[in-house]
């Protein structure tokens, strides 16, 4: 699999980026800014997931339309009435606002999808492990047990089907349910038995006798600091412009959207630049790779 350049940075930098991206994606309702957010998150989502991303993005279209059309039903404010039904107005402003809400929703899904790919379980524990040692140990154990229990479950199901107690696609719901319950029951006993061995082994290795230390694969390097500081500066500029009303957009009861021109253009470019950091890093990586390949 192609390695994502942004994922190689320190987890704290990754987390900072996503907090900024999601927060501003939710806060800024300006159509152009939303479009920028969807563009940046879509491109990054695509570079992370490849072909699978197209399916996810296509699935979002009906959701987008539904949220857009739904908004005017619960929201009757707005001055331009398109038509009335059951004595309730269906307004253009509410419809436009619905588009903004739907765009925010799509943007959030895309950014969180990227977040899931970049900040994996180990990175999360690296960030917060020292803050809550017992909870993060619990989480690590769950991460480890999910695949191991799945494997055990497959073994149990295999054994059951080899003695003629397996279930098929066309088995009745009652049979499926009964069989599933038996499998879960066996699985629980098996796992609980194993748990005693695990905890005895943990105890004999001295769990709980001293402060737990954790192994860190990730270290803040100069590049990480550089990216962190640059991100903070960019975020500061965006906040400055947003606080001065350069990104305001109101839909109800009347549309009032601040145009992007003059000094406000800087704010927009900075915002777009911030969102495109992972993509720029990836492009840089590809170019570098091709240059070094051509030298061989």
């Amino acid at each position: 699999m192609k390695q994502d350049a942004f994922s190689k940075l320190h987890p704290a930098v990754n987390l900072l980026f996503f907090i900024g991206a999601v927060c501003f994606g939710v806060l800024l309702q300006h159509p152009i800014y939303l479009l920028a957010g969807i563009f940046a998150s879509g491109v990054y989502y695509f570079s992370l997931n490849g072909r699978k991303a197209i399916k996810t993005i296509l699935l979002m279209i009906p959701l987008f339309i539904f949220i857009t059309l739904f908004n005017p039903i619960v929201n009757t404010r707005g001055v331009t009435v398109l038509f009335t039904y059951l004595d309730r107005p269906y307004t253009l402003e509410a419809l436009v606002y619905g588009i903004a809400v739907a765009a925010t929703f799509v943007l959030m899904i895309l950014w969180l999808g990227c977040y899931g790919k970049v900040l994996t379980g180990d990175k999360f524990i690296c960030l917060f492990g020292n803050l809550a040692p017992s909870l993060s140990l619990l989480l690590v154990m769950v991460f480890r047990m999910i695949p191991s229990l799945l494997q055990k479950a497959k073994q149990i199901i295999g054994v059951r089907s080899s003695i003629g107690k397996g279930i098929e696609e066309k088995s009745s719901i009652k049979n499926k349910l009964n069989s599933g319950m038996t499998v879960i029951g066996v699985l629980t006993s098996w796992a609980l038995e194993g748990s005693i061995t695990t905890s005895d082994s943990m105890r004999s290795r001295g769990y709980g006798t001293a402060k737990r230390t954790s192994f860190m694969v990730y270290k803040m390097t100069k590049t990480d600091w550089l990216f962190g500081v640059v991100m903070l500066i960019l975020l500061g500029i965006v906040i400055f412009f947003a606080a001065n009303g350069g990104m305001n957009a109101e839909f109800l009861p009347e549309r009032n959207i601040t145009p992007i021109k003059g000094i406000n253009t800087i704010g927009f470019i900075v915002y777009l630049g911030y969102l495109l950091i992972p993509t720029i890093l990836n492009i840089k990586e590809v170019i570098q790779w091709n240059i070094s390949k051509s030298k061989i």
Partner: protein
Amino acid sequence: MKKSNVAMLIVFLALIPLTLFWGDKLPGKGYYITGVLIIAELSIPFFMMFERRKPQARELVVLAIMCALAVIGRVVIPIPHFKAAFAIIMLTGIAFGPESGFIVGAITAFASNFFYGQGAYMPWQMMAYGAGGMLAGFVFIKNKIPRKPWIMAIFGFLANVFWIGPLLDTSHIFIMMPEISFATITASLASGFPVNVSQGICTALMMFIFGKPLLEKLDRVKQKYGMLEDENGI
């Protein structure tokens, strides 16, 4: 005063009011951020309690198994839309008490998001699952209500339809709805109702068939190894 009690006081008297105050000033869909922050703040005292107790190895391993079982439940029972997670979380709450129920619920929601993909509703999931486990622990505390299969089944159904389900549905208000108003709240809760009922039936079935055997297994482990009871039991 215990540290976790101090934390709870700070959270309720200072952090949440401040978040509500500042959150109200945020533009756009800022209420999503406010909602996430308040859920995070609410869970701080619970997690602190768990950390301060310094749980022993045996307890951690058993809780981890319950979480993992709840996450993979839908793989083991091959019926579409049949969610075993709620029943397993509530049974853990019944067996080990409200605090363990909350921890298992919250961690299950959190871990399954890593497993099945991150969603914007994750904080609400953590809250609702945790609250479900906690409620089960409180209702069946100290065996006052007998742990009969049909009682647990009725409890599971009611808890799903009137407690966990509505808590989960509040996420729709924050994520998909254009504003928070009476209309959007009723719309979200009403649209979630059929799903909640169907999941309530799943949970009730699961509690009825699987409740007693699982509780017996957990009680046996608890008794045999003295888990989650005395401090020195390890």
